[in-house]
């Protein structure tokens, strides 16, 4: 019998819906003055197997739209862009050895960068809008 873990489904759904999304398929979540950045479930699906991630350095400054992270998949290479002006405070170093976490949990354990906001621009799409955008 197929068991469906509804609690897990709800958790996965919440991970996706509580974030905001960009047209370039990054997500960010904002807590106080810090944003966490990753790529969407749709983006990881389109990229396929992710094998390598080039991270920025802690302390590196980015303007909105700057390329922050390079994501290498077997199919192609993609970039994740800064959703707003920010300074990197933490990177997800577990992606060094296990970049495939981005495929399995793009909106949770597969987060890429945490950054301090320099210029708040919370203009990302809500999940519903993003779902319409990609469909």
């Amino acid at each position, binding site marked *: 019998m197929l068991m469906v873990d509804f609690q897990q489904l709800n958790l996965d759904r919440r991970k996706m819906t509580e974030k905001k999304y960009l047209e370039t398929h990054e997500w960010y979540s904002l807590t106080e003055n810090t944003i966490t950045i990753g790529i969407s479930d749709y983006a990881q699906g389109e990229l*396929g197997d992710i*094998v*390598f991630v*080039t991270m920025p350095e802690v302390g590196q400054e980015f303007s909105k739209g700057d390329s922050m992270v*390079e994501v290498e998949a*077997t199919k192609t290479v993609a970039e994740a862009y800064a959703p707003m002006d920010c300074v990197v405070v933490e990177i997800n170093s577990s992606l060094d050895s296990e970049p495939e976490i981005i495929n399995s949990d793009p909106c949770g354990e597969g987060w890429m960068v945490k950054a301090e906001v320099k210029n708040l621009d919370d203009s990302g799409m809500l999940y519903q809008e993003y779902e319409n955008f990609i469909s």
Partner: protein
Amino acid sequence: MPNIKYSPLHSLHVKNKAKFIEFGGWTMPFSYKGTIKEHQFVRQNSGYFDVSHMGRLLIDKAYLQKISSLICSDLIELKSGKALYSIFTNEKGSALDDVIFWKYDDYILLICNAANTDKITNYLQTEEIIFQDLTEKTALVAVQGPEAISNLKALLPIPDSFSCLSNDIYTYARTGYTGEDGLEIMVNVEDLDELISFLLQNEIEPCGLGARDTLRLEAALPLYGFELTEDISPVEAGLKWTLSNKNKYRGSDVINEQIRTGHHKVLKKFSIDSRNIARTGTKVKAGNINGIVTSGNFSPILQKSIGFVLLESQPDTDLLEFEIRGKFIEGNILKKRFLS
């Protein structure tokens, strides 16, 4: 742009939730469960690839001599029941296409690259070689992996390596493009059902062109358009072993001159001790010799970046420097095979 073509197995791929890609004018599966999973499955078990996009031309044996004057390998001395990898060369000795021949008593089956099917059919017509184009009347399925042959025993008598057989329904050879054992099987579209249910019953996993590409790269097999083009000769591509045609053939004087002088471009295998992929078009330096990556990807077995680089001439160092999006990354020329 001509109409995009679909494989006779397309509805099966849709049912299997394939992600599709356009390739050589065809919509074909890129992946199902993921390129790396499919890659590992073929290395450890057995998977099937729909390669119906490849051109399939049936040629009467009367044209053997004529075909032979256009390719670099010896098709004439080849025994019936054997398969042969060869290259159609142009006046410059470079590759028009790399192809497989399956030689039977009365006919030869020529299997060419999808992107080159029009080029090859036009070429054969210009050379007044009559053929029957079976591409859209048949399907071509490659079953590959260490378990492929033991699985297929239940369906077909198994030929020796690089040999071909046929029966009322199937025309097939023990060939492939993954570095693994297996069969490539051609079947008329109306006779496909048995093969499909066989694949399903034996739990042979569907694999896409994504895995086909990483598998062939790990097996150091060239892909037309990358390692071989109308500007790259078999000698330059490191395929001297294909030059078994002792007679004169198109471009043979240029090819023989390249061998004599050693003055030509060289294709080399490389690896990088990281997961940094040096993709097609990446600039490379070997000492003061310039080069360009023809194919590069992540090797799921070696867990590092591998590929082919085309250098302007023979380098005197094995050290390579890749310029990957503004960063310089070191790698090495590999003399041995990628997989031991």
